[in-house]
């Protein structure tokens, strides 16, 4: 909510009565990412609605960082996120299953080698 909003307030008699349906605005949905401290990456914490990006950041501050949870906020329009589909899970991730040699534990070392 813009903090100077009171100044723009019309007199109550100037408010035409509105039905709730007409008034629905469906403000865009923003996905919120928070960096909890310097040195760590931003992490998804949830979403919220806001009229624009600035308001999304202000709302995210109030909703997701009331207890020093963050030092930086990213607000991303949910509609701009491209996600892989659960149906593609196998196609995308199965190929990694049989490549155990990508992990260091695959390799046997002689006991004499202490640190590698």
């Amino acid at each position: 909510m813009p903090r100077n909003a009171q100044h723009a307030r019309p007199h109550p008699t100037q408010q035409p009565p509105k039905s709730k349906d007409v008034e629905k605005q469906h403000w865009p949905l923003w996905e919120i990412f928070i960096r909890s401290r310097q040195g760590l990456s931003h992490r998804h914490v949830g979403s919220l609605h806001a009229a624009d990006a600035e308001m999304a950041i202000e709302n995210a501050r109030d909703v997701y960082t009331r207890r020093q949870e963050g030092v930086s906020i990213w607000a991303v329009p949910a509609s701009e996120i491209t996600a892989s589909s659960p149906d593609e899970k196998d196609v995308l991730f199965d190929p990694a299953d049989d490549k155990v040699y990508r992990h260091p534990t695959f390799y046997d070392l002689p006991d004499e080698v202490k640190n590698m």
Partner: protein
Amino acid sequence: MENPLCPSSVLSAFPDVFLKRMEMDLLQRFEAYVASEKKIEPKDWMPDAYRKTLIRQISQHAHSEIVGMLPEGNWISRAPSLKRKAILMAKVQDEAGHGLYLYSACETLGVQRDDTIADLHSGKAKYSSIFNYPTLTWADMGAVGWLVDGAAIMNQVPLCKCSYGPYARAMVRVCKEESFHQRQGFQIMMTLAQGTEDQKAMAQDALNRWWWPSIMMFGPPDDNSPNSAQSMAWNIKRFSNDELRQKFIDLTVPQAELIGLTIPDADLKWNEETGHYEHGPIDWAEFNRVIAGHGPCNKERLAARNKAWDDGAWVREAAGAHAEKRAARKAASNTAAA
């Protein structure tokens, strides 16, 4: 969303029996998956009934947080000290936050936020019936924090492991914040109970009024809880209503004794054999009355929410106009720069 590997044009070519079998197969796989403690995420396939159950439960939960701000908001301006006032404001603000985490989780199931909120305002959606009781004295702030938030925590801790990822994650956040709520409530009660005779009486009176509604918060008894079995099978619910209620009573009775207050239940007694307290009969007729809309404050709560929404119309409108203006200005300066 349409599955590109199986578009509806292809599906419609299959006989219904075959489709039914495909769905049964998906359902079986889903149930086995959930039973193995794995999590469901928003875009995964889920049975319609699972989605519906979650939408109902999460939205009710969100509404409860939002309506729950009202009985406590009632005392912000009359808190006995600046410290108590700051704490109460932080708590009420947390409840707003909890409502928003939950609305956000609910939205991942494909509902629109404004529609969910409209259902609250029209009276179509329910919220926890506890918030239809009035907060008459400052001691009620203590009783609400200690008992109502205490019962809520008891309900919510198992939900941190619920099978639906976004709900479980929201619950983790909520539970972390909620334990401050319960402690601050207990501290209010403790301070009053150690005060003058009048203060102690005020604390006891609050306990007398909030005890039964609090233990009703766990919902109807197990033999009369139609949705429980399915929710348990889907790992949405982990413990039965009666189990959670018993756990809450066992924890809370010694806390009341410690601060010298009496639980208003003449039949309450410790059972050495079972290691649990036995409680007197619960007035489920009252519970059903309040749920049906005839509690002391049902009308007042809904009216307050509707008024808040209506009074905020100009703010939403102004914010929308401001956003448009800002976007236009930005576009203009981009054009000028190009």
